[in-house]
């Protein structure tokens, strides 16, 4: 019992040092700030947004306020249908967060478990799993997501499934190669001679050593998932019911916002995507610093 308590204290300490190390990286600091701002936006969207994203705003005589330039009334202007772009950006952060986090979580769990099993057991199990991963690597990512969404329908959940169905392949390969070297270490031998079963060795002894690297690839997956969701929505395969930055760009493109010169409709959604994806890259740089201590000396 005593030992157990000491163990948890130590891991907690280690975690705070890891976080401090990560935050020492200037880019990671910027990344965290951006993520926190977007989190607040997503959580309190109904309180921050002045209008509902689908609301058609008209003046006192009933004519739509379409293509309004950015002003004090509409911070980012309005669309062709007289919808408030600022509110759409705010609500769009919810889709980005949901897709990014859930897809990344699925990628991390699938990739880590499959990689652990494949690397630990080796022999024919590894062979079969790795051939399957080869197969998944042969599938073109975006076209597959397009076809899958056409088959199962374009809801937000299905978009998440379509993205994570292929994205785990990279995490899996990286985790496996880590496990291959880890399982030769003495502590695995010690655990086995102490009577630990395969499952216990995999999930209690090996997995904690894998978490940092799978977290790193999970953070990459957040960015990838957000970019892919935006792409799918832009192409018309997104969730028609939800408000997303990709869908905003699709609407702008289809309604000739470019030739009208409505720059305020084109720039904000893209800038929002750039900011959130960029901050995931910045955070991943911070994590790399923790995972790979050699980087610190340079």
């Amino acid at each position, binding site marked *: 019992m005593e030992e157990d308590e000491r163990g948890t204290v130590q891991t907690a300490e280690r975690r705070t040092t890891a976080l401090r190390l990560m935050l020492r990286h200037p880019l990671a600091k910027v990344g965290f700030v951006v993520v926190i701002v977007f989190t607040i936006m997503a959580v309190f969207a109904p309180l921050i947004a002045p209008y509902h994203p689908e609301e058609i705003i008209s003046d006192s005589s009933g004519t739509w306020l379409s293509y309004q330039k950015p002003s004090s009334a509409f911070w980012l202007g309005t669309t062709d249908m007289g919808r408030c772009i600022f509110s759409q950006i705010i609500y769009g952060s919810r889709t980005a967060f949901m897709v990014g986090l859930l897809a990344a979580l699925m990628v991390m769990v699938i990739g880590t478990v499959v990689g652990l099993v494949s690397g630990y057991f080796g022999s024919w199990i590894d062979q079969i799993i790795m051939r399957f991963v080869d197969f998944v690597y042969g599938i073109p990512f975006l076209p597959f997501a397009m076809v899958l969404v056409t088959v199962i329908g374009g809801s937000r959940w299905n978009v998440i499934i379509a993205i994570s169905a292929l994205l785990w392949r990279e995490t899996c390969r990286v985790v496996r190669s880590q496990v291959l070297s880890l399982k030769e270490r003495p502590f695995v031998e010690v655990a086995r001679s102490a009577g630990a079963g395969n499952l216990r060795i995999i999930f209690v002894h090996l997995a904690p050593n894998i978490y940092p690297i799978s977290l790193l690839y999970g953070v990459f997956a957040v960015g990838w998932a957000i970019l892919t969701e935006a792409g799918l929505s832009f192409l018309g395969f997104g969730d028609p019911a939800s408000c997303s930055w990709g869908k905003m760009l699709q609407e702008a493109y289809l309604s000739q916002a470019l030739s009208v010169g409505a720059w305020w409709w084109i720039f904000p959604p*893209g800038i929002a995507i750039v900011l959130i994806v960029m901050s995931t890259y910045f955070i991943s740089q911070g994590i790399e610093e923790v995972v790979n201590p050699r980087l610190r000396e340079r």
Partner: protein
Amino acid sequence: MNVLRFFARRLFHSVFVFLGILTLLFFLFRLMPGDPTQLFISPEMAADAIQEIREAFGLDRPLYMQYLLYVVNVCRGNFGISYYFFEPANRVVFEHLRNTLVLTITAMCLSYLIGVVGGTVLAWKRGTRLELGGMVSALILRSAPVFWVGLIFLYIFAFKLHIFPGGSITETGEFYGGFLEMVCSWEFLHHLVLPVISMCCYFMGLPLLLTRSSILEVIKEDYVEMARAKGIGARRVMFRHVTRTAILPVVTAFATAIAYAFEGSVLIEMVFSWPGIGRLMVMSLLGNDYPVAQFAFMILAAMMILMNLLADFLYGYLDPRVVVQ
């Protein structure tokens, strides 16, 4: 001998991966909403044409027979008739394929040229403001959705400044004797500029970061010190001695990057109305032209597998340690 066996094994695996993807496609497209016969037959077809397709694809027979016939038809290159173009699906796809090839290969060559030179400069200027700026801008460019960058370029250069055309591959009404003649025309190159630059913005990030980190590894080697000690100029050492070794991982990344560019060109093709295979696939999926969508997907998958195989070969050739494992 070892090398040959390694290559043969990879080739063997690739054939199986492709068969797996054929199977996946068969079942995915059978699950499409609507009647499965719709996959190959459009209501506008003549009765005898419908009968012919029914027999060729075995649409009245059990599923496993349909699957076997499907594999036979794939081997024969028979994918049915496009509903939209009223032409064999494979002819439609190959016509669009060459447009995509011209676009992606041009974009990738330019990206890697800029990336390798830029990465060398960044590694050389390690620790300076220039390095930080270069790294940050590479990360920002990699975070920008490629279709959005395309939209911005389109807005600025086509709609505001009127320097470049607003999309498509040539002016409407222009006719060319052949594909090569078209590609070599000024008109075509004029249309190529914006999509290529938009793709470059995204794809040059990877070679830039890869070259930089690879050079930082090589630069510590003894022979670089030696070259410097012999009194060879810094620029010459950098480009002749360091970059040549450091470029190996970048070369293998190039093969896989082409495959990703190929499928990723879907978005750029949509923005610039480029009549390539990606746009064809989107249009045919949204318009229920399943024979074309299916074949386009297959070609994209074949390109992925081929490029992964090429990357493996390059890797095995350049770094013999891989083969031994």
